[in-house]
């Protein structure tokens, strides 16, 4: 996995199963069994996804051997969305420029 936290977050998010797991956890803690239930996937496969999420700091897991509830940790997600927001802002500025230019063109047409 890449070293910097943001890359790790994005890599962890780049998978539909992991995003579905995060969506489930946003409603509250859950066990591996609970999390595996909606997927046609073995428990070890789900555990693998959980490990990726855990390493990215997106979830934490309880330490009790039997019942190791997974819990969402929103901080890295927040950083990732903040970042995308910045990127989007850059795009929006391009919309602004086009809009301003169109306005200029229309004014010229009216003359």
């Amino acid at each position, binding site marked *: 996995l890449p070293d910097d936290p943001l890359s790790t977050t*994005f890599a962890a998010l*780049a998978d539909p199963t992991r995003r579905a797991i995060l969506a489930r956890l946003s409603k509250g803690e859950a066990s591996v069994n609970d999390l595996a239930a909606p997927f046609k996937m073995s428990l070890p496969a789900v555990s693998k996804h959980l490990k990726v999420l855990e390493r990215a700091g997106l979830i934490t897991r309880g330490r009790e051997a039997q019942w190791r509830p997974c819990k969402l940790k929103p901080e890295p997600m927040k950083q990732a969305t903040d970042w995308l927001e*910045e990127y*989007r802002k850059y795009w929006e500025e391009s919309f602004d420029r086009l809009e301003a230019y*169109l306005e200029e063109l229309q004014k010229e047409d009216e003359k």
Partner: protein
Amino acid sequence: MSDKTNETHELVLTRLMNAPRAKVYECWTNEEHIVKWFAPKPWTTPFAKLDVRPGGTQQFTMRSPEGVDYPNSGVYLEVIPNEKLVWTDAYTSAWVPSAKPFFTAILTFADEGGKTRYTATARHWRVEDLEAHVKMGFHEGWGQCATQLEELAATL
């Protein structure tokens, strides 16, 4: 203005533009127009060559405030006049693969209450690419990477 991120590798922006559809389309397809709005100041676009047809090449040169030129090129995949433009940086000309395909831009123009609904979608090959480009653009300032970001901004 509203926007959303459907998937982590796709970015969609849409805006109702107070101009006729043909005019918004022209801003994207006419060389004289595109150079006027394309670059964020103090950058400029001293050169644009737009061969607007499927398989045609779209070339831009972006000039930094220091006067350094950064040429970019892509290829149009779909062209429906006044309606839709699709282009990608996966080819530098038809059909020469670019060093690193990054994204496909889908621009649509539609009538809406006397205005134009303008929507730009950028689909990236991999979310890691998107992330890497964003990061380079924003955290290392303008430079070689900024031109790639410019290409992205060009999807708008």
